[in-house]
């Protein structure tokens, strides 16, 4: 279960706080605390780690010239050092680590998701425009038809590590060697060079031929070196061959478009979609990331494929979360009550057996359950002699996933309910029986309310967790069964599995769109949790 349980639910009711002149007291206490060797050692090690991580993180930031990030890093580290090397600010010493983790693991991801929701980030729109242009131009380099394939050696006049590079190319037809650089290609005399049998030049007067190790250290320069020729340009294909190629498509800044030199077609940049689009609507595959404003959000609300089945999915999603949480809670509490009875023998053995499902990885268990529900080969049908197509019918599939959830989840509820039951004084139930209450009445009136006070935050967090329980659906039914005429929304789909399919199931991933939908889900879960916590607090005030 995740963090919500440590949220507002743990805020204490007023009046419980120990009152008095605590701040003044703690200050005097702090000044008299002796510096112990263990304490100092721990502080040194932890701060050392902080500094170590900061230095480790600084290098990539400097390399990427991320000065804002670097400033943030320096400020945070300096702040941490100041805080823990001074004797003041005692409360902050306790609060800061938690706050930092909260920022790093909760707030930043939420903000990042929110910012992604306003872009078209996804497959085909990952990078910036400049990168897109480079990709289009590189992808359009074609070998000039009928041109020669040369054997290539990379050489330099100067130092192998820094000298200007040249290509020494051998024409396989006549063995003639030419030298090429950015200005062009010129012939070399045969007596100036030594040519190996494969055609590669191994030595040339006045030049140092680079070996693979030396050449590969200057990979980028070699890839960038283009020797202009009449038909196009000579480019390297690896380190031992060169070919005459031509970039068919080029970007023209004047018209902000890409032009194909062979067909004359142009694709103009469209900054609102991050693509190059031709007049007839044809779009180049490579695009870039742009802000799209509220488009992702309006798409969720207006696309009939999404808004149509949305309500039905939402209702089932609530039913699934409530059913999973309620079912596991009821069974877990029932078992805990049974084992709590003083007349019960061998409780430890039962407890071990009951915790077993919880100890097994749910990932694997979900897959095992999926196979057990198989119509012809599954354990359940074979055991009971049934022929039910569990995952093929709407209601049996829903019942099946809830059953799996019950099996996976009740040991957890059993554990927490056992703990909570032991905290309820036996005198209370004994008192009710003295007053003549039946066991059911005493459970209803005393045990259950006290249990709920302790377990409500856990139930709410369990609800929130199950509301987005992607694995429980995706590893069993995958959202199915699907109606024959709608392959995008199935009977057991949760909002999260449904949106996963919408955002990642089509032509490439759409992270921007996925982020927008997850914000909607976030809002729904947040509202439900907030309302429940508010109600819980009222309940606590009554029973506490």
């Amino acid at each position, binding site marked *: 279960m995740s963090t919500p349980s440590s949220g507002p639910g743990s805020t204490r009711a007023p009046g419980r706080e120990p009152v008095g002149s605590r701040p003044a007291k703690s200050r005097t206490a702090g000044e008299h605390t002796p*510096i112990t060797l263990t304490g*100092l050692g721990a502080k040194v090690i932890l*701060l*050392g*780690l902080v*500094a*170590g991580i*900061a*230095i*480790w993180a600084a290098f990539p930031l400097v390399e990427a010239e991320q000065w804002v990030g670097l400033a943030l890093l320096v400020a945070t580290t300096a702040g941490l050092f100041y805080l823990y*090397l001074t004797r003041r600010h005692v409360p902050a010493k306790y609060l800061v680590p938690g706050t930092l983790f909260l920022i790093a693991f909760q707030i930043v991801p939420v903000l990042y998701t929110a910012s992604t929701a306003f872009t078209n980030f996804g*497959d085909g729109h*990952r*990078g910036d425009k400049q*990168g*897109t242009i480079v990709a*289009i131009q590189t*992808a359009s*380099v*074609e*070998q000039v038809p009928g041109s020669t394939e040369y054997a290539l050696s990379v050489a330099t006049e100067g130092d192998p*590590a820094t000298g200007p590079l040249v290509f020494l190319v051998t024409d396989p037809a006549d063995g003639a060697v030419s030298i090429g650089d950015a200005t062009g290609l010129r012939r070399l005399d045969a007596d100036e060079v030594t040519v190996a049998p494969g055609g590669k030049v191994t030595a040339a007067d006045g030049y140092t031929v680079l*070996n*693979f*190790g*030396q*050449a*590969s*250290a200057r*990979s*980028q320069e070699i*890839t960038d070196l283009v020797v202009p020729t009449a038909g196009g340009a000579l480019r*390297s*294909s*690896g*380190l*031992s*061959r060169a070919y005459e190629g031509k970039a068919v498509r080029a970007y023209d800044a004047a018209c902000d478009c890409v032009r194909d030199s062979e067909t004359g077609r142009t694709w103009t940049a469209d900054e609102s979609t991050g693509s190059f689009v031709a007049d007839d609507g044809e779009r180049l*595959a*490579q695009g870039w990331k742009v802000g799209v404003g509220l488009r992702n959000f309006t798409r969720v609300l207006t696309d009939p*494929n999404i808004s149509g089945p949305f309500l039905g999915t939402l209702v089932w999603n609530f039913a699934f979360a409530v059913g999973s949480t309620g079912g596991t809670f009821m069974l877990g509490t029932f078992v805990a009550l049974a084992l709590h009875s003083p007349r019960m023998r061998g409780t430890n053995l039962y407890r071990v057996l009951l915790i077993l499902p919880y100890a097994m990885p749910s990932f694997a268990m979900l897959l095992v359950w999926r*196979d057990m529900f*198989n*119509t*012809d080969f*599954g354990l359940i049908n074979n055991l009971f002699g049934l022929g039910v*197509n569990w*995952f*093929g019918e709407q209601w049996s599939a829903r019942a099946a996933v809830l059953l799996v959830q019950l099996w996976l989840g009740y040991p957890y509820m059993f554990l927490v309910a056992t703990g909570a039951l032991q905290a309820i004084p036996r005198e209370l139930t004994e008192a009710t029986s003295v007053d003549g209450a039946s066991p059911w009445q005493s459970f209803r009136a005393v045990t259950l309310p006290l249990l709920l006070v302790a377990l409500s935050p856990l139930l709410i967090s369990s609800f929130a967790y199950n509301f987005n329980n992607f694995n429980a659906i995706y590893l069993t039914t*995958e959202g*199915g069964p*699907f109606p*024959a*005429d*709608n*392959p995008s929304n199935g009977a057991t789909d949760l909002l999260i599995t449904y949106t996963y399919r919408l955002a990642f*199931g*089509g*032509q*490439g991933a759409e992270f921007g769109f996925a982020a927008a939908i997850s914000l909607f889900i976030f809002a729904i879960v947040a509202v439900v949790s907030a309302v429940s916590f508010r109600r819980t607090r009222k309940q606590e005030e009554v029973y506490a």
Partner: protein
Amino acid sequence: MRIRTAGVIAVFTLALAASGCGGGSDEPATDESPKAAGGKLVIWADDKRTAALKPFAETFGRENGVTVEVQAVSKDLQTNFVTASQQGSGPDVVVGAHDWIGNMVQNGAIDPVQLAADQKSAFNQTAIKAVTFNGQLYGVPYAMENLALIRNTALAPEAPKTVEELVATGKRLKAEKKASEILCLQSGQNGDAYHIYPLYTSAGGYLFGTTANGDYDPKDLGVGKPESIEAFKKIGALGEKGEGVLKRSITPENSIATFTGKKCAFLVSGPWAVADVKKAGISYDITPVPGFAGGKEAQPFVGVQAFYVASKGKNKALAQEFVANHVTKPDLAVALYQAEPRPPALTAALDQVKGSDPDLAKFTEAGRNGQVLPAIPAMAAIWDPFGKAEAAVIGGADPARTITSAGQTIAGQIK
């Protein structure tokens, strides 16, 4: 005061030590080959292929004085590669299936590879076609794979020539209680477009039309067209409400196991199934997937595994050299075949290994009429709706309505 100063000094010493450790781990391989002055080639592949590639990569590194690192990415290799590549932390070379090409190209993650004419002609031409996208060659293939019909010869000595023959044999075996299923062709609750495709083509369906230059055309979608409805009527007739040949209870997980458990005499699967079949000690034969009587030929998808040069790699020239001039040699293809027995794409390598492994030639024969698995990004929109439509039709849904709406869903997702 003195104790605090000592503390501060200790903190900084530790900090330096910690950052020193962090920096050290970035260059683990430098002492392996002392000649590696500057060049380092990073290759990403899946687990199985990493093991096969390592010795070859080390030899390449030693011979050329460079460092070669092969890193295993066991899950979501393509997604990880595209993401890492965008962030500038990707490899120089990546190894993967050819149908990734469309997506990798639209993300500007891979560069074309220039092969000489004689290099190209050394490959199976279907493999070369598979890695060609928008008229450019984007990868160097090393292995091919396609579906075939694997038959338990103890149960069914004769290879069926048509689907009808297969069904008749299967039904007879079922009546004689020698098998419990007629055919092991995996579908699952949500269908399996890859495995049903041979029957779909035999019944006359197609996915994409082709443009003038032979590429797949995403604008000409065959799903939802009358031919596809006719094809799914034939598939539906084999389904649960019909002949009971195709069943949703046969899933990717249990299909091969059911065959090796001798519960069905016929299995539609690829080279990856052979190891299990051999282990089970079943006498088997491999033949092309049969088509419907009087129908077209059943055409399985042909998939190709290939090496790609990353656009944003740090050592592109070396990567080009490795992919264009070293992957094209037979020894690597043979080593990769030994890691996982799929037919090599290099004709010379296939000739080298097919003598000791007769299955290879049979799989190649089964894929002779195959269709190259489309690599266009639009293909990603096909899998899910097409599979679900298949499952629905097998379960008895009306083919016309089901396929029409699948076609609409797919068309809506193609940009």
